[in-house]
């Protein structure tokens, strides 16, 4: 990351810490939702942006994480253990689901995960003894950690932001490790990666399973944030939404999901004037973006920066040098 990048990220972090003091409760709820969805989108970015596989199950994994969290909290488990269990459970399910689908590569993961999301929805809706069906689970308590109660909206936001920071740092570290380099190799040139002796199938599966695990962690924050969960929240719509977040932000870009989630959470609020048309407009924007700039908003910004630098002189960065780094 160059100096400009560090300044931008630093400013964003300070902004994220200061901004809740100037917001009403609903605003705080929105930025908390941004933090929660960013975690899930970051997980999907591993699958989509790095391993190049379309998954339509990310929303279902968030759902599994959220339900696991709600049920275990009500069973009286301590929150840290619940949080980790939700992540591990989704990691395991992701592994089990990805194993058969990735055997045949290409578009099959999209279909298998599409089917999986619908199956999860049916189970959540029909197994009333466990999930209370369409009535959902309400009154999910926010955790108290080491004597710090997060029941207050602002406190819970800081908890989500903390979780996001830790998870983002861990993902960043992972992408710089030999493992992460392998993920990037998958994205850049899968055939060359294979010929260099990388077990591409295993790494793709790993990326998918870790991505699912992150969705589980996101669900573990989602449940206490919203405090009410029901099956419809985790139907196909959420998975589509997460997918579009990654694409809009910039697939395969580390900070893509942060931008994408921000757009997806805030855009509906900004576009209140257009009322129900916002989804239509949003979909149209996504299609335009894909046609003219498939690397997303960050790719667009990068292009603009490069264009202005190119005009100034040869001190610009070499093309693609930035995208090769996570």
């Amino acid at each position, binding site marked *: 990351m160059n100096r400009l990048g560090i300044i931008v990220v630093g400013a964003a972090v300070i902004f994220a810490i200061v901004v809740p003091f100037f917001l009403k409760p609903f605003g705080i709820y929105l930025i908390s939702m941004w933090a929660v969805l960013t975690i899930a989108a970051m997980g999907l970015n591993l699958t989509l942006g790095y391993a190049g596989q379309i998954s339509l199950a990310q929303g279902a994994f968030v759902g599994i994480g959220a339900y696991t969290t709600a049920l275990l909290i009500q069973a009286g488990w301590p929150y840290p253990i619940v949080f980790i269990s939700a992540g591990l459970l989704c990691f395991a399910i992701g592994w089990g689901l990805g194993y058969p689908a990735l055997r045949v590569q290409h578009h099959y993961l999209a279909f298998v995960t599409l089917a*999986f999301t619908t199956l999860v929805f049916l189970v959540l809706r029909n197994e009333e003894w466990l999930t209370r069906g369409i009535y959902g689970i309400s009154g999910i308590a926010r955790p108290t950690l080491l004597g710090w109660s997060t029941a207050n909206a602002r406190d819970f936001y800081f908890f989500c932001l903390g979780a996001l920071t830790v998870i983002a740092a861990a993902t960043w570290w992972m992408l710089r490790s030999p493992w992460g380099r392998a993920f990037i190799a998958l994205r850049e040139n899968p055939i060359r990666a294979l010929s260099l002796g990388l077990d591409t199938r295993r790494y793709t599966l790993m990326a998918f399973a870790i991505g699912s695990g992150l969705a589980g962690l996101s669900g573990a924050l989602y449940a206490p944030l919203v405090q009410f969960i029901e099956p419809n929240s985790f139907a196909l719509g959420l998975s589509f939404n997460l997918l579009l977040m990654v694409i809009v932000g910039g697939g395969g870009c580390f900070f893509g999901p942060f931008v994408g989630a921000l757009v997806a959470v805030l855009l509906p609020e900004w576009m209140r004037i257009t009322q129900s048309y916002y989804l239509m407009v949003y979909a149209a924007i996504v299609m335009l973006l894909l046609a003219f700039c498939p690397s997303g908003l960050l790719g667009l910004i990068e292009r603009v920066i490069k264009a202005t630098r190119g005009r100034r002189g040869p001190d610009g960065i070499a093309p693609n040098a930035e995208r090769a780094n996570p």
Partner: protein
Amino acid sequence: MASFIQLLVSGLATGAIYALIAVGFTLLWQTSQTINFAQGEFVMLPAFFILSAMNWGAPFWLAALIGIALSVAILGLLFKIIIVDPMLRHGVLPLVISTIALSLFLKESVKDFYSSQAQPFPALVPSTDIHIFDAVISTQSLAVLAVAIVTVVALQVLLNKTRVGRCMQATAQNPTLARILGIPTRRMVLYTFLINGVLVAVASILVSPIYLAKFTNGETLGMAAFVAAIIGGYNQVRGAILGGVILGILDNLSAAYVSSQYRGAFPLLVLIAVILLRPQGLFGRIEERTV
């Protein structure tokens, strides 16, 4: 036994509709590597073209023709020019995501500009029941079956017996060679998009009287099309037809005999089983990979 026959016939009718949708889906995949995630919405939309035409005072038959024409123009031609052509150079995955966005766009457009309520849709034939032995079979199911069979047979004749159809097949099998042989491959690809426009419009006319015309219809129909296409074999028109029929029957029988709550789950389980055990589909060939 009587109820079994009833279920079988209504399953065949549903399956025939699924088959039409799946065939269009497969055609697009074969000729242009387009995985159309908006296929379900493509079936949902023509019903609203027809309803709009009828609101302007057109009789049903004229409205249906207008609906098919609009479907060919918008869901065939415009879809190809505006969405697919600019995206293809970016590869298969961005196009998939673009069609997902398109499905959202179509759904929201219908909701905002027409209605979010389910709309009644005129049936092809008056609904009466025929008694064969003990089974009660609705004329509607038979009409659906008849129209679907005629459509599929016409398509098969077009693909196998005519020069244009042969050219389309050649384009699907080996585009480079087809071009060398002087086949206008780009036009052939365009034809498959137009054919898909006709198929989804016919499916829409058949399915809307049963499910009512609603903006969310595409979700289940699209899923049915994917499942049918994959069960049957992704790269075979024949496979997609059989896949659709199998799916329709399975859907009806499992809802009646196993669990209606999990009605939607059986096709999905079959899908996962097929991908696990026979990824090329029950009737398909193994896809050759190009590097």
